[in-house]
């Protein structure tokens, strides 16, 4: 491991991570502010009753029906499409770095160095995953700080740490898949387009599966199915399997991406 290259990659990827953190934290804070302003009981009634209940439960994620209350609202923040879009965009953009180096024309400059392609990819992965860990944990723990400061009664620190870990696992699964796409695609825009399309389809599969029984069995194929913050906040039985699936998918996709990277023309 070259700490110098690790530091360099951190500096290059850092601004994007900072903007991602700022974006999702700002939105999370607004959502908590709205919850406090409307009042927990009224918000609960607004969200979990009526015709939109099923859709909201599907967006909040998880295998079973989401109960009402503040944890369900927190899960809704975590899985809100805006939060997901920002997080997925950052991970996908970072993950498709090989294709983007090809598209930007900088690939010759980097990959002609006396270091193997795999090591270059690992250096990049180390930096991006460190940043993703920082962003997801910061988001999770700051949500709790804001909730407490607003006089709300969130679950304990450890529940938020676990939820942050699940968010990190989810982001890593997106990152790993993006690495694979980036190693297969010809250039950056093609890779980003493919990644965006794939993740949009997987998200739709998860949400539609949550409200339509016919599609429900296929939800297992969606990474979003395993990103169930409510399970994490409640330390439910599915938390362990969800973490295993997400980290497993990240590892498998990244290993496949290394194979593809070794074999491809740059």
């Amino acid at each position, binding site marked *: 491991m*070259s700490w*110098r*290259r690790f530091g*360099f990659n951190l500096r*290059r990827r850092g601004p994007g991570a900072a903007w991602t953190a700022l974006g999702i934290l700002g939105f999370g804070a607004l959502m908590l502010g709205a919850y406090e302003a409307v009042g927990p009981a009224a918000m609960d009634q607004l969200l979990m009753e009526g015709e939109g209940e099923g859709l909201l439960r599907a967006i909040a994620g998880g295998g079973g029906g989401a109960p009402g209350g503040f944890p369900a609202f927190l899960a809704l923040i975590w899985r809100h499409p805006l939060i997901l879009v920002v997080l997925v965009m950052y991970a996908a953009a970072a993950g498709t770095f090989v294709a983007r180096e090809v598209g*930007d*024309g*900088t*690939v*010759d*400059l980097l*990959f*002609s*160095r*006396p*270091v*193997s392609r795999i090591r270059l990819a690992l250096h990049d992965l180390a930096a991006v995953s460190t940043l993703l860990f920082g962003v997801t944990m910061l988001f999770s723990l700051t949500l709790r700080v804001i909730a407490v400061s607003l006089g709300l009664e969130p679950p304990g620190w450890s529940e938020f740490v676990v939820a942050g870990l699940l968010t990190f696992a989810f982001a890593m699964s997106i990152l790993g898949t993006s690495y694979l796409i980036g190693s297969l695609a010809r250039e950056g825009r093609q890779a980003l387009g493919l990644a965006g399309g794939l993740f949009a389809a997987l998200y739709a599969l998860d949400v539609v599966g949550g409200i339509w029984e016919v599609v429900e069995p296929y939800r297992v194929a969606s990474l979003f199915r395993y990103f169930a913050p409510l399970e994490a906040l409640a330390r439910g039985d599915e938390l362990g399997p969800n973490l295993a699936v997400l980290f497993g998918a990240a590892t498998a996709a990244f290993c496949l991406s290394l194979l593809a990277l070794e*074999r*491809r*023309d*740059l």
Partner: protein
Amino acid sequence: MAAIQALELTKHYGRTQALKRLVLDVPEGRVFGFLGANGAGKTTTIRLLLGLLRPTAGTARLFGRDPRRDVAVRREVGYLPGELSLYPELTGQELLDHLGGFYGATPVRKEALDALELSAADLRRKTREYSSGMKQKLGLVQAVQHAPRLLILDEPSRGLDPLIQRSLFELLGGLHRRGATIFMSTHVLFEVQQMCQEVAIIRSGELLVTGEVAELQRRRLHRLEVALEHPVDLEPLRQAGAVVGPVDGPDRFTCTVSGPIAPVLEVLSRLPVASLACAPPRLDEIFLEFYASPREGGE
């Protein structure tokens, strides 16, 4: 030992044959020009040599080692890409530090910066603010800064003004005198003539010829500058195989001969020749001869 070896190196992109069974041997310590028109296969060859592309067939060797499997051999190589793109968010200094960090020491950096007139103030600026000439200079510095044994330069003088070009040649000459091998791809024949001891000419992915510049000049073409006492019909010269032109007045002309020169000299001996000079052909004439003719048998 050969610095570069290409053994039947072949590259296909789908149905397009970008490179066809290229055989190349560049001994250590030489300055080697790799000539060809745009799209001839020069950059593909270089990217195969560096292991950026996988050959369809054949092998590439740098100092006897496979650059794809044995990436450490690239420590001995400095490379300037033809289509140079830099990281726009980095300053020149950050870029040089980052790329130099792969090698440890960068003993030639200061010398190269001075020769190419890149100041400390220039290096503090983001590369997105650089002109194309400054980018090329920075690209050259990153290629030479670690004093590599082999320099692979794809169009090195692109975007440089004539003064900086001269400084570049002096810098490269200095590195060559210290033992570096220089492999230079270009279609600017003047710089090859200035720098190179040996050349290879490639067309449509096929090697047309390779050899020493002086040897090619001697063997391939004869260029005569003729002044006559009075104008005469030059058709007999053309029939003897000479290409006549450009005519400077009615009694002065040049006469280029590829192949046997004896019949041309015989015709000239019957003409009222006032003066006759034999100049070595310029490299561009050799190049154009190869490009104009059908596939040569090579050397």
